[in-house]
């Protein structure tokens, strides 16, 4: 329990610090904040006033930060500097796509990454070599390149999958998101497959597995209960880090497939210099990243009795 509280406090501290960075970044920009926010666009005085109010530019910095942060917590993230749309509403319409994409990719990472790693680690031989080679290559393939290759082969070439859009309804959505999720998860699958294989090989040489052999336990029990299960403990952390990384990796793939997710919105907002939207998305991504990392830590304490009992959670 103490451990839990400490972990939560640490996350809170880090999130506050990073939200300050996200907020104050505005003031690092050359020129005055208004100039930066308006970016040379001609705007009506009402809009300018609205911006001044949104960022409470007439107040001292800590007050501004506080106003912004409390706004975020009450769901008021201001308005887009460009379209005057409510940022909260804008995000709400975009988040489902990103979430489904990330969840799909996470599932692929867990199933394919760990699955291939187990195959390579337990079968040996040709399967092992193929997985090692593919993962060496897969690590080096940028997600956006994978996206384009998949798109040109399966959408443009074979016509099996749609090129754009996120789809309506569950089945259609899965169909639309398959290629993006594959592209997004590919490098992670490669890394996880390889970590899993290494972990299994190391575990299978450990003393307790040797003793399990000496006790004449069935091969199946030795393999799954003693070798694979144990080797997956360290793999969990790596999987978690990669799933957390999806939060940020998603925008490249969303952009490549022109999906209407938060990532593509972020990129477009940066391109169009809509800083209010950029700030909101950056903050949400940092929070999501932190929360996923926290969940992984907690999961780890649940599945590994050594950690669980030592921490006294």
């Amino acid at each position, binding site marked *: 329990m103490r451990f839990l509280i400490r972990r939560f406090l640490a996350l809170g501290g880090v999130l506050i610090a990073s939200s300050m960075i996200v907020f104050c970044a505005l003031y690092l920009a050359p020129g005055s904040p208004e100039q930066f926010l308006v970016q040379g666009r001609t705007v009506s005085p009402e809009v300018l006033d609205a911006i001044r109010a949104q960022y409470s530019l007439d107040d001292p910095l800590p007050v501004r930060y506080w106003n912004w942060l409390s706004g975020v917590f009450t769901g008021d993230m201001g308005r887009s500097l460009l379209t005057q749309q409510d940022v909260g509403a804008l995000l709400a319409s975009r988040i489902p796509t990103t979430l489904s994409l990330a969840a799909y990719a996470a599932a692929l990472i867990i199933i394919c990454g760990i699955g291939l790693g187990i195959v390579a680690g337990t079968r040996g031989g040709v399967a092992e070599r193929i997985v090692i080679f593919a993962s060496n290559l897969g690590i080096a393939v940028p997600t956006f390149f994978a996206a384009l290759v998949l798109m040109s082969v399966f959408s443009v070439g074979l016509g099996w999958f749609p090129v754009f859009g996120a789809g309506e309804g569950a089945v259609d959505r899965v169909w639309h998101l398959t290629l993006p999720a594959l592209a997004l998860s590919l490098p992670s699958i490669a890394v996880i497959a390889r970590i899993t294989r290494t972990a299994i090989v190391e575990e299978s040489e450990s*003393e*307790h597995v040797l003793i399990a052999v000496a006790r004449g*336990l069935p091969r199946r029990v030795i393999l799954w209960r003693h070798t694979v299960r144990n080797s997956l*403990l360290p793999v969990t952390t790596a999987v978690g880090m990669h799933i957390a990384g999806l939060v940020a990796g998603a925008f490249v793939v969303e952009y490549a497939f022109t999906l209407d997710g938060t990532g593509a919105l972020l990129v477009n907002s940066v391109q169009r210099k809509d800083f209010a939207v950029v700030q909101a998305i950056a903050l949400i991504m940092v929070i999501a990243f932190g929360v996923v990392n926290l969940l992984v830590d907690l999961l780890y304490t649940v599945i590994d009795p*050594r950690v669980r009992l030592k921490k006294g959670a």
Partner: protein
Amino acid sequence: MIAIENLELGIKDPDSGALKPVLKGVSLELGRGEAIGLVGESGSGKSMTLRCILGIGPRNAVVGGRIMFDGENLRSLPTDKMRRVRAGRIALISQNPHAALNPVLPIETYLLEGMPELRDARAARLRAGELLEQVGIRSVDRVLKSFPHQLSGGMLQRVVIAGAISGKPDLLLADEPTTALDVTTQAEVAAILDEKRRDLGMSMIFVTHDLDLAAAVTDRLAVMRYGEIVEIGTPEQIRDNPQHPYTRMLMSIRPTLDGVQAVPATQPEIGSTL
């Protein structure tokens, strides 16, 4: 019961392919119910001999010779038959119990997976509790639910002994079972092991570098050096009338109640390992 015939083992260097000899023709015979102590320095091949019997030698090892167990050569047994021998007839107690048990599984799982013949989970649990009581563990329920890292080395080694005797094997292989324990529990664990072995009439090969301990729990001693057995005899013969010069040297540097005798200056490296 078991006869090791001219057992040889070399470890292949993965880079050069050169063979480093570890066992150079070890022969040893053991009758039913008999206990033999395998003594010698670290690296003399004692543990390796045990691992060869179970067929769990290192991956890059080259093995020769025969290991006859009830008329069958263990070395040419098919995998599944060998597994059944390991499961029911030969049990191993290794040096470090904390390394021998899967760290993330509770003791109960460790004991239960060793008795697959008990299909009924409740019966198996009762049996596990009985076994723990037999090795002198009182808080049975707590221990069953514990994980290895929560128990002391001595306690855990008792659990290992309980697991080893659960299948009433014919042969016990004890690989320095007390070395990793602290001095006070060493004697207790050795006593429990000795008692259970006699009760169940098991044969035992007891590997140790502690001559006195070996003499106390075994009927015969085999002295190993550089992968060979240099002398076999009863503990009395070995102690009072050692034949081989190496055995004589071992006896001369043994600590006695009168105090530690001087280590012969010509063989300083021996003294440091004993």
